[in-house]
C-alpha cells in the first residue's frame, strides 16, 4: 500500500438548461391601465435586456405623467365604484384566483424571471415564484378577517396605493406589494423597475385572466421619472417603495405634508455573526447563502461578516474551499449557483467598490473560475482583514462581495454590528440558546436569523431600522400599511 498517485478524475456536470420553448412573450408591451393594454402617450418604448447575453428580450412602454394620471384615475374609479363596495369575501376570491393562476404558470414565470433578471433558474423556480404565490394565498386569507387582525378597531382601506418596486426580486416584490393592498381593499398603480418589467407584465395578464375588476390593479412601466409621477400624484393615498436609501429619502421629502401614508423598504449592510461555538460548517453555508444568494442583490444580504477571532482562520479556510464548488454561469442552467449581475450599471457599481476595497489595502479572494463571456458577470468575492472604517464595510454594494471582520467578545460584536446607518437584518450563529436571545434583543435590525440566513415567509414581517426604512411587509404587520384604523 505505497502512496499511489491515482489518475486525477475529472467529472463535470453536463449542461442542463431549462427550456424556453414553453414561454410566451410579446415583442412589445404596453401599459396595463383600467384592465386594458394602453399605448404610452409619448409613444416611447425601451428595451428589456437579458443580462446574461445582453440580448433584447422585449420592448416595454415608457409611461409619462399623463399615463400615470390615467392609471391613477382608473384606480380611483375602480376603488369608488367596485373594490371598496364588494364584500371582503369576494375580494378574497379574486386574490386566491390570482395565486392559483400564478401556480399554474409557475414554470413560465420562473423562466421569464431568469431571462429578464439574470437570476438562476433554481432560485426563481424554488424561491421567487413559490413565495410570490404564497403571499397571495396568505393575504387572500386575511381579506374577510380584517376585524380579527385589528381587534376592537374599525378597519378601512386607504384608497389608491402607488407602489414602486426594485429589480432584485421583480415578481416577488410585486406580490409583496399587491397582495396585502388588495386584501385590505385598496386599488393599485404599480411600477416595476426598468430593467425587470416582464414578470410584472405577465402578472398583469394573469390578473386580467382572473377577472379582477378593471382598474383595481394598474401596471405602468418606466424609469425613475415614471416613479416620480406616481409619488407626486395628488390623488394617491399611499406610497410603498422598495429600493435604494437615496431614492427613499427623496420620496420621503416629496410626500412630507401631503397626507400620503408611506412605507419604505430600503438598503442594508447586514451583519452575519459567527461565534466560536457555532456549527461552523453550517455557518459557512449560511455565509454563502447570506451573501451569494441572488448574486448578492438582496437588501438584507449578510454582507458584513463578523467572525470570532479564535475561529476566523478555519472559517475563512472553509469558506474559500466551499466557494470553489460554486458554479457561475448561464442563469437558465439548472446547475448554476451564481447567475448574471442584473445590469451593466450595477456591475459597474460593484466593480467600483471592488476597486475601492483594493485601494483600501484589503486582501481580496475571488473564486477561481472563468466568467461566462457576453454577459454581466462578477466572481464571488471576499475581502478579509477589514475594519469598521473601510468604505466597503460601510456602504451597500448590492453584489456578491463580502467583507470579513473579526471580533473578540459579544459586546464588541454588538457594538460593531450596530455601528451602521442601516438596520435591516442580521444573522447569529451559535450553539448557545441564551446567546441567541441576548444578541437578538441587542442587535438593531428588523429581521434577525439564528443559525440560518435569508429565510422568508409570508407570515413573517420584514422591514428595517434606521436608514433601512420603516413600515413592515409580510404577516399581520404588512396589512397595517394598507389600512386606516379607527
Amino acid at each position, binding site marked *: 500500500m505505497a502512496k499511489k498517485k491515482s489518475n486525477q478524475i475529472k*467529472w463535470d*456536470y453536463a449542461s442542463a438548461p431549462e427550456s424556453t420553448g414553453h414561454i410566451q412573450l410579446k415583442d412589445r408591451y404596453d401599459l396595463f391601465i383600467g384592465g386594458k393594454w394602453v399605448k404610452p402617450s409619448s409613444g416611447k418604448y425601451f428595451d428589456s435586456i437579458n443580462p446574461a447575453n445582453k440580448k433584447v428580450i422585449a420592448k416595454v412602454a415608457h409611461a409619462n405623467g399623463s399615463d400615470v394620471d390615467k392609471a391613477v384615475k382608473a384606480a380611483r374609479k375602480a376603488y369608488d365604484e367596485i373594490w371598496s363596495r364588494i364584500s371582503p369575501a369576494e375580494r378574497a376570491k379574486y386574490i386566491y384566483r390570482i395565486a392559483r393562476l400564478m401556480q399554474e404558470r409557475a414554470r413560465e414565470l420562473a423562466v421569464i424571471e431568469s431571462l429578464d433578471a439574470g437570476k438562476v433558474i433554481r432560485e426563481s423556480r424554488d424561491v421567487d415564484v413559490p413565495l410570490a404565490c404564497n403571499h397571495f394565498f396568505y393575504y387572500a386569507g386575511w381579506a374577510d378577517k380584517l376585524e380579527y387582525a385589528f381587534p376592537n378597531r374599525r378597519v378601512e382601506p386607504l384608497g389608491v396605493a402607488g407602489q414602486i418596486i426594485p429589480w432584485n426580486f421583480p415578481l416577488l416584490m410585486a406580490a409583496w406589494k399587491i397582495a396585502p393592498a388588495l386584501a385590505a381593499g385598496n386599488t393599485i398603480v404599480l411600477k416595476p423597475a426598468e430593467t425587470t418589467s416582464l414578470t410584472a407584465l405577465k402578472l398583469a395578464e394573469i390578473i386580467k385572466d382572473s377577472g379582477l375588476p378593471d382598474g383595481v390593479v394598474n401596471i405602468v412601466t418606466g424609469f425613475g421619472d415614471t416613479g416620480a409621477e406616481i409619488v407626486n400624484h395628488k390623488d394617491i393615498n399611499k406610497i410603498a417603495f422598495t429600493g435604494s436609501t437615496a431614492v427613499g429619502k427623496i420620496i420621503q421629502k416629496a410626500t412630507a405634508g401631503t397626507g400620503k401614508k408611506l412605507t419604505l423598504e430600503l438598503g442594508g449592510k447586514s451583519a452575519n455573526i459567527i461565534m466560536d461555538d457555532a456549527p461552523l460548517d453550517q455557518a459557512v453555508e449560511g455565509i454563502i447563502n447570506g451573501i451569494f444568494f441572488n448574486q448578492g442583490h438582496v437588501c438584507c444580504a449578510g454582507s458584513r461578516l463578523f467572525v470570532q477571532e479564535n475561529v476566523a482562520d478555519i472559517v475563512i479556510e472553509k469558506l474559500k474551499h466551499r466557494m470553489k464548488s460554486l458554479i457561475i454561469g448561464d442563469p437558465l442552467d439548472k446547475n448554476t449557483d451564481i447567475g448574471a449581475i442584473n445590469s451593466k450599471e450595477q456591475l459597474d457599481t460593484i466593480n467600483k467598490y471592488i476597486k475601492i476595497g483594493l485601494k483600501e489595502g484589503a486582501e481580496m479572494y475571488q473564486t477561481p473560475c472563468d466568467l461566462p463571456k457576453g454577459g454581466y458577470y462578477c466572481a464571488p468575492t471576499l475581502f478579509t482583514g477589514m475594519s469598521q472604517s473601510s468604505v466597503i464595510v460601510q456602504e451597500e454594494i448590492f453584489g456578491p462581495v463580502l467583507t470579513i471582520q473579526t471580533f473578540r467578545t459579544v459586546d464588541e460584536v454588538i457594538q460593531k454590528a450596530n455601528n451602521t446607518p442601516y438596520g435591516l437584518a442580521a444573522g447569529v450563529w451559535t450553539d448557545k440558546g441564551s446567546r441567541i436571545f441576548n444578541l437578538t434583543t441587542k442587535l438593531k435590525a428588523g429581521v434577525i436569523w439564528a443559525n440560518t440566513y435569508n429565510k422568508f415567509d409570508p407570515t413573517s414581517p420584514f422591514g428595517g431600522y434606521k436608514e433601512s426604512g420603516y413600515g413592515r411587509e409580510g404577516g399581520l404587520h404588512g396589512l397595517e400599511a394598507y389600512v386606516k384604523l379607527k
Partner: protein
Amino acid sequence: MPARKFVNSDIPDFSQQAHIDKVGVEERVSRFQKRSIKNESKLQGLKMILNMIDLTTLEGKDTPGKVKQMCYKAAHLHDAHPGLPTVAAVCVYPAMVATAKKAVEGSDVKVASVSTAFPSGQAPRKVKLDDTKFAVDNGADEIDMVISRGKFLEGDYNFVFDEIAAIKEACGNARLKVILETGELVTLDNVRRASDIALYAGADFIKTSTGKIQPAATMQVTYTMLEAIRDYKLKTGIQVGMKPAGGISNSKLALHYLVMVKETLGEEWLTNEWFRFGASSLANDVLMQILKTETGVYQSSDYFSID
C-alpha cells in the same frame, strides 16, 4: 500508507461537544439532490459508481458456493456489454476470505473482510485482534472493523481510539475501514465525534454502517463524515476514504452521493481508492441505467444476473 504527520497535540479533545446543526445539514444535502446529472456526465458517473461498489454478502448462511458466485459477478458484471469496469471489492466474513481471494484471482477486484466480532463488536480485544489477523493472513486486502458503540456512548473515547489504533496495527498492509454504525450513534454530533476519533486513530476509510441496523447510510450522515474527512485533510494533509454502506440501492441516489463527494471533498476522491459504496443490489440498477443511457431503452431485469 504515508507516515502520520501530526503530533499528539493536534489530536482534538474528543470530550468536547461537536457542533453540527441538523437543519443546516439537511438543507445542504437537499442542494446536492438538485444537481441535474445528464448525458455524458451521467454515463461517466454511473461507470464510476460501478467501479466503487463493494459487492457484499454478510449472512449467517453464507457458504463458499454463494461467495464464489458473487465473486464471479464482481469481475463479470455484465459481459454482454463490453467495456464495463469491475466492482472495487467483494466484502465477506473472515471465514470466507480464502475462498473469495481465490475466486477473484487475476482480476482487479479486492477482498475486504469484516472483522472485530462484526456486527456488534461485543468481544474482548484479543478476539478482535485475532479475528483481524485471521482475515489478513487469509489474504484480505481490506479490513472493515466496527467500533465499540457501547464504550463510545458511555463516553470512553480513549477506549474506542486505542482499539482502532490496535486493529490498525494488526492490519499490516491491509487498508482499514472503520465502521461507526451511525444508526446506533443517533445524533450528528456523535457521528462527527466518532469520525474524528477514527480518523485520528489511523483509519484509512471511515464507513457509516454494518447494514444490520436501520437507518444505515443516509446522505446527512455521510455528509457529516465527509466534512470530518475534509477537516482532517486540511489539518494533517492526509487523505482518508469514505464508504457509505446500506440503503443505497438506486443509481439516482448514488449519483447524488458522487455530487456530494465532489462538492465537499473534491474530484481527487472520485476513485475507488477513496470512495466506496457498500451495497448488494446497487450494481444491477446501475447496469440497467448504463444500458438505458447508451441504447435509449430499458431492458428487463431478467437480462441482469442476480449473484
